[in-house]
């Protein structure tokens, strides 16, 4: 039971494992480039517990299910449960411990949550990304809780000298019904700790009908009170004795470096203590820092003022000519020529030639920046060959490995304390800011906080890619779609790991391209080449954003051309209820999940369309200037459909009176947090559709703050977002929630604008396109 996933002990397993680049940080391995990371092996026999298998065991360091690692009970009865994933707003720091509490019959009011430091050997994988925490950890957390419960019951039974089968844990105590005896968890703690951890075979999970917390949604997040009184601690809130405050001037062009600098004026700024160069790595270098010049001061304000006074001459390097206007033209050119075929069914080329009508759409989505409200920030304290980090990182274990490697010390010498994250959205999966703090602390021999300003965040991040999706749909005389050719061109995230990567990786192709669920006889997906000129990274929902925008816009375009109702058109294209056969795809990826547990189930896809159409009043009459649009998309193995109502006045001003979203995310833990994620996804979707655009000129990002990279504010946010959650069937595996709400929003909005105005927008952001 107590199986630790020490990678050193697992080498023998490796050759039996199919290597999959399911982890965002282990992508190097998947790309076939030498890298020193540990592969995970299955650490438990899951089938004993559930009718489904997940990709959890394939993540670095897999899963640890030892209750002694995750649960401790104090003599006063307070149960402490470890939260080992990063809290960035999804509620995971509450929901995973809640699962443990549910199974062990702990009373939530007597549970405290303790944040795990980065230690994947001890806790299992900690990469909080890919909308996978609940889907990978629902069962392991239940198992941990059930083990703890069983140990408490065994201890009570021994004390009373009765068979363990006669006692039962219930609400923080163990009860012997026959004699009416009761004993609290606190009193049993010491004895229970001496019990051996039960094997899987003997464990019994609770019957879901007895759940007190799971699926109920009445539990607020554990940090709720602290957040409202200003006591919640984010990365920026760490204070240490002797702490130095640093900001860094980084090369304005990706891959650039410092040629020379003059610190004289900066040193004159009150509070500035030191100016020094920071080591940078040649691009691409995964998550290593960009380098630059750091200003160290007694407070952040002085450091920023000092940085403003720096005079730096930069060497821009190879990307100094990156220009978004020219780059877009190159994407369009590439998309109009054949590219690498990544899925082929039937003969789309021939069918398009023989089609009665071909509808072509080219859909453009520019670079996007994450702009989490808390910009990247980290505190590091390096003492000799030891390093302690405090940072808002999505990948605590990965941060530990990368910092250790950079400093040339063993992983065990690095402690990564995970603070709350003031938003993540994929940006904080990359730990460059923590490495910067570690380098500076080592250099200065003092604890250092590196604070990124908003401008740093916008200009030096790991941007969402820029993409051109070209779809050609061939129709026969009756208007039936007989051919579909989808070319997707975008610089790949792989380019951040390996120089010269020009094709999208399986995990990008698998986000709405090769996993197209439509029932079309001749279907082809292609991926022409695109070179990257800046750091490309994961942004909430990743490639699903442009793909859903393109595919779901095209559906509405076909509906319009054939005078069909868009919802009916959508259902016709999805076709019969079935499990989509992806056998023609070399690597279907499927979000790292086994297809047997998580197939593309068109019955579920149809169901969310029908549910949102029903609840959201599809087809209702709306006032003049208003319009309804619909879109559906499967991502992160969840199914989501959205209807957006727009209102556009005679000046082209766009407002959103109402949003309706239906989600099928399988078995779930906290419906209240699902609703909040979907409400937020609508606003992020509206932000990117209406305003989201990062552009480059002369290799430099042209935006810097919320004035030129605006996001939606309250006065433009949807008046109301309704969320409908599909009740899970028995044993329906849990699936993603954090990301999948985003992709269907933009196409539903754009389709609604078409319904209201007859104007078809194929290029995001909307910007001033409605004003013309």
């Amino acid at each position: 039971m107590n199986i630790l996933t020490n990678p050193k002990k697992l080498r023998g397993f490796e050759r039996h494992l199919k290597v999959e680049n399911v982890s965002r940080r282990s992508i190097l391995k998947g790309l076939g480039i030498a890298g020193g990371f540990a592969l995970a092996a299955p650490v438990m026999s899951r089938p004993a517990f559930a009718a489904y298998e997940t990709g959890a065991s394939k993540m670095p360091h897999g899963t640890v299910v030892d209750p002694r690692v995750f649960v401790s009970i104090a003599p006063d009865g307070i149960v402490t449960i470890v939260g080992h994933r990063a809290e960035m707003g999804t509620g995971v720091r509450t929901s995973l411990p809640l699962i443990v509490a549910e199974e062990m019959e702990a009373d939530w009011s007597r549970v405290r949550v303790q944040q795990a430091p980065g230690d994947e050997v001890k806790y299992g994988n900690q990469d909080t990304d890919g909308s996978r925490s609940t889907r990978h950890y629902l069962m392991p957390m239940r198992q941990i809780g059930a083990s703890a419960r069983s140990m408490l019951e065994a201890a009570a039974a021994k004390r009373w000298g009765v068979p363990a089968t006669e006692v039962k844990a219930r609400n923080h105590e163990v009860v012997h019904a026959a004699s009416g005896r009761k004993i609290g968890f606190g009193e049993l703690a010491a004895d229970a700790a001496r019990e051996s951890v039960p094997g899987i075979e003997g464990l019994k999970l609770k019957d879901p009908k007895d759940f007190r917390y799971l699926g109920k949604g009445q539990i607020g997040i554990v940090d709720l009170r602290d957040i409202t009184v200003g006591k919640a601690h984010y990365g920026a809130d760490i204070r240490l004795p002797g702490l130095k405050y640093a900001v860094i001037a980084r090369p304005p062009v990706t891959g650039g470096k410092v040629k020379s600098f003059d610190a004289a004026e900066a040193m004159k700024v009150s509070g500035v203590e030191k100016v020094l160069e920071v080591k940078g790595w040649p691009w691409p270098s995964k998550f290593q820092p960009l380098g630059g010049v750091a200003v160290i001061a007694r407070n952040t304000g002085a450091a920023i003022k000092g940085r403003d006074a720096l005079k730096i001459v930069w060497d821009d390097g190879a990307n100094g000519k990156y220009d978004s206007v020219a780059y877009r033209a190159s994407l369009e050119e590439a998309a109009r020529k054949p590219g690498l075929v990544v899925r082929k069914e039937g003969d789309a080329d021939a069918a398009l030639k023989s089609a009665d009508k071909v509808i072509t759409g080219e859909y453009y989505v520019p670079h996007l920046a994450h702009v989490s409200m808390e910009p990247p920030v980290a505190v590091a304290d390096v003492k000799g060959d030891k390093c302690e980090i405090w940072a808002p990182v999505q990948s605590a274990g990965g941060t530990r490995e990368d910092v250790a490697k950079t400093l040339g010390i063993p992983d065990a010498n690095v402690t990564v304390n995970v603070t709350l994250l003031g938003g993540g959205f994929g940006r904080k999966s990359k730990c460059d800011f923590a490495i910067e703090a570690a380098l500076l602390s080592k250099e200065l021999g003092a604890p250092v906080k590196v604070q990124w300003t908003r401008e740093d965040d916008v200009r030096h991040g790991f941007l969402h890619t820029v993409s051109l999706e070209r779809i050609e749909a061939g129709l026969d005389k009756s208007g039936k779609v007989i051919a579909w050719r989808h070319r997707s061109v975008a610089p790949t995230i792989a380019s951040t790991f390996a120089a010269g990567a020009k094709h999208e990786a399986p995990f990008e192709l698998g986000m709405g391209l090769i996993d197209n669920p439509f029932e079309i006889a001749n279907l082809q997906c292609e991926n022409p080449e695109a070179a990257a000129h800046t750091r490309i990274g994961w942004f909430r929902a990743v490639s699903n954003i442009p793909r859903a925008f393109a595919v779901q816009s095209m559906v509405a375009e076909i509906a319009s051309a054939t005078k069909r109702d868009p919802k009916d058109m959508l259902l016709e294209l999805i076709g019969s209820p079935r499990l989509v056969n992806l056998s023609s795809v070399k690597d279907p990826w499927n979000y790292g999940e086994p297809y047997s547990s998580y197939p593309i189930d068109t019955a579920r896809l149809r169901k969310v369309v029908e549910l949102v159409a029903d609840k959201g009043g599809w087809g209702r009459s709306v006032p003049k200037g208003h319009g309804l649009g619909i879109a559906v998309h499967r991502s992160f193995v969840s199914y989501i459909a959205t209807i957006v109502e727009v209102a556009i006045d005679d000046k082209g001003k766009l407002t959103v009176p109402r949003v309706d979203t239906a989600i099928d995310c399988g078995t779930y833990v906290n419906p209240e947090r699902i609703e909040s994620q979907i409400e937020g996804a609508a606003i992020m979707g509206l932000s990117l559709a209406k305003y989201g655009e990062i552009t480059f000129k002369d290799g430099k990002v042209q935006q810097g703050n919320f004035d030129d990279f605006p996001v939606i504010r309250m006065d433009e946010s949807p008046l109301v977002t309704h969320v409908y959650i599909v009740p899970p069937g028995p044993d329906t595996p849990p699936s993603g929630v954090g990301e999948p709400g985003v992709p269907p929003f933009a196409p539903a909005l754009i389709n609604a604008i078409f319904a209201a105005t007859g104007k078809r927008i194929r290029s995001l952001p909307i910007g001033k396109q409605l004003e013309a």
Partner: protein
Amino acid sequence: MIKVKINGQEQNWDGDPDLPLLWFLRDEVGLTGTKYGCGQALCGSCTVIIDKQAVRACITSVSDVAGRDVTTIEGLHPTGDHPVQKAWRQLNVPQCGYCQTGQIMQGAALLMDNPKPSHDQIREAMAGNICRCGCYQRIENAVHLASTGV
């Protein structure tokens, strides 16, 4: 020497008088509930209250507030039970929570000025505060709930 009263307590500053109040609060005084989000009064994460007015601490210098009373989230209510804070908890408003102290301060300032704002007035008054997680629907409802007495 600049003297500023923060949450009723006098604080002294003999450094750069132009230092933004935000960094004075966070790095020098140690009140970290006031957050940095943009540095240009574009996002409202650093909102504090001075003379019943919501003020962006990132573009306000320490010298600007010499001799004034500054209230931060830590001083909004002695036990953290201001009606806006209570409404926030009742409606489970936050996601990541980072911008929420600024939102709460803005909401509290709004209610000082207009105890019974309409939904439109709330949407307008809160439009200077960005929430990237997108909690706006709940923020709007929480400010409204607070105005009805929690």
